[in-house]
């Protein structure tokens, strides 16, 4: 049983937040949606879990009791302790008694908060809060886990711990959909969807997206921004040409996934 959106559109008044986007969430896989701010990532997830109605297209999702959702605003209670937050989630999803004790202990161990049961949610660091929120969403072993920018603003160490949690959930059979602005995280996914202003401009496995990059990519080592479609890359510049010819001074280079994302946006803007 797979879930997702098919040619889904969402309109708020005259503004089209989502335009005929298709997203597939299959069990035991991780699907990552990448895009900048205003790309429509949150709207996409909200449409998937049913917080927002569709103006077109269709959606498929399991009943509420089988969904786990963590919004971008973290969504835990800062004036409740770690234990109390989990208990609330347990009560809501019907995970109580022995099963709750067992499952919560397991999750707390995984996220490193086993000794912090009585700490208030508001006293946890940003990374810890996110981990707790994800644990709360995993308590009932949902069939579909939906995470809105789970790693934004989180330090690299906590970030990888979060992904470990997420990968473990997928390995156990959950279908995971997550959005991110960190392009490098898309490597962990089996399917990546690139969103730009509400449209899906590329979708597929990371390797497929890189292979599908049109034109030619080059590196320019200069102090001044070269002319043409270029962007800074560390201490050098990346230069992209829609044709197969690079201007002078640019050394050809194989695109990495991060390049593919930028190129896809530029190509889309130019109707390539």
């Amino acid at each position, binding site marked *: 049983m797979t879930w997702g959106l098919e040619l889904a559109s969402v309109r708020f008044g005259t503004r089209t937040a989502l335009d005929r986007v298709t997203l597939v969430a299959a069990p035991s896989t991780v699907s990552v949606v990448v895009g*900048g701010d*205003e790309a429509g990532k949150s709207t996409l997830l909200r449409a998937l879990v049913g917080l927002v109605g569709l103006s077109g297209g269709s959606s498929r999702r399991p009943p509420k009791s089988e969904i786990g959702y963590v919004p971008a605003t973290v969504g835990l209670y800062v004036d409740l302790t770690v234990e109390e937050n989990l208990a609330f989630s347990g009560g809501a999803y019907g995970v109580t008694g022995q099963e709750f004790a067992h499952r919560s202990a397991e999750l707390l161990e995984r996220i490193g908060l086993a000794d912090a049961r009585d700490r208030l949610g508001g006293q946890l660091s940003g*990374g810890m809060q996110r981990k707790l929120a994800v644990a709360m969403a995993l308590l009932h072993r949902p069939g579909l886990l939906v995470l809105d*920018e789970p790693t934004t603003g989180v330090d690299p160490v*906590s970030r990888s711990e979060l992904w470990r949690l997420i*990968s473990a959930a997928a390995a156990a059979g959950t279908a995971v959909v997550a959005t991110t602005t960190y392009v*490098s995280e898309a490597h*962990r996914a089996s399917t990546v969807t690139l969103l730009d202003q509400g449209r899906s401009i590329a979708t597929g496995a990371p*390797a497929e997206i*890189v292979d599908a990059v049109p034109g030619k990519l080059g590196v320019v080592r200069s102090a001044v921004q070269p002319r043409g479609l270029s962007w800074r890359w560390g201490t050098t510049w990346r230069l992209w040409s829609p044709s197969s010819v690079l201007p002078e001074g640019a050394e050809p280079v194989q695109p990495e996934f991060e390049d593919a994302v930028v190129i896809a946006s530029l190509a889309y803007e130019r109707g390539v």
Partner: protein
Amino acid sequence: MAVLAETRRVTKRFGTFTAVDAADLAVASGEVVGLLGSNGAGKTTLIRLLLGLLRPSGGDALLFGVLPSMSTRRRVGYVPQTLGLYDDMTVLENWSFTAAAFGSARPVLPESIRDSKDELVGSLPLGLQRRVAFAVAFSHEPELLVLDEPTSGVGPLSRARLWQDIRESTEHGAGVLVTTHNMEEAEQCDRLVVMVDGRVAADGAVADVIGSRTVVQVTCDDRRKAFAALEEEGLIVQVQSDALRVPGSPGQVEEILARHNLAATVATVPANLEEAFVSVVTKGTHR
């Protein structure tokens, strides 16, 4: 290159908790310094000490060579994580307010944000809000810019544009202090300062911070399985185009993979910044 701001073994205690412990930090004109560290490592406290918003419990914090004061505050542009803009005023109104507050003659709105001058800040997309915040902070031509996570939550193209703005400002002689969690961004800095538990654990150019650290590069047919096996052992795995990278020694990694019946080739390669950062931070801290 004049030193704009520096701390000399500065310490800050809140009751029994030491937030910053004998930290040395310096920002000179024309350079971009990146401040890295986990949440709670003391980055924000250090910045507030530098800006004179907190008084040190020990050591010194100097702004333009003297103790921070009203007059030195005028020469600093600060963009906190929450942007410091008024959501319910337009871009132009925010601009005028800051210009009036700092007593600068009304300079012209920069081109990059001129199109949205009459829009309420609260209605703009995040990337644009951040560019406005930066422009507003720079409007009175400060000599030192302090930016707290300037591109958090922003897409790759917007991020690149914002960094272009930052670089341009250094070309005018300003010094910039940036805190970030994004390694791509950290790589754009001239110098990095890594904080762990209130102390400065590493300080230098990107190459210096990486030092001679190495990681193990793993090429395996069944990449997914290898990934899972390594993560399960508690290793932090990074994915490159067609290889995996883990900290540790080749021997260790081979042994783990063998235990899971996976055939792979392993090689020692230099670490990248993210791996170096993780190694600096987790060294000595128990998880």
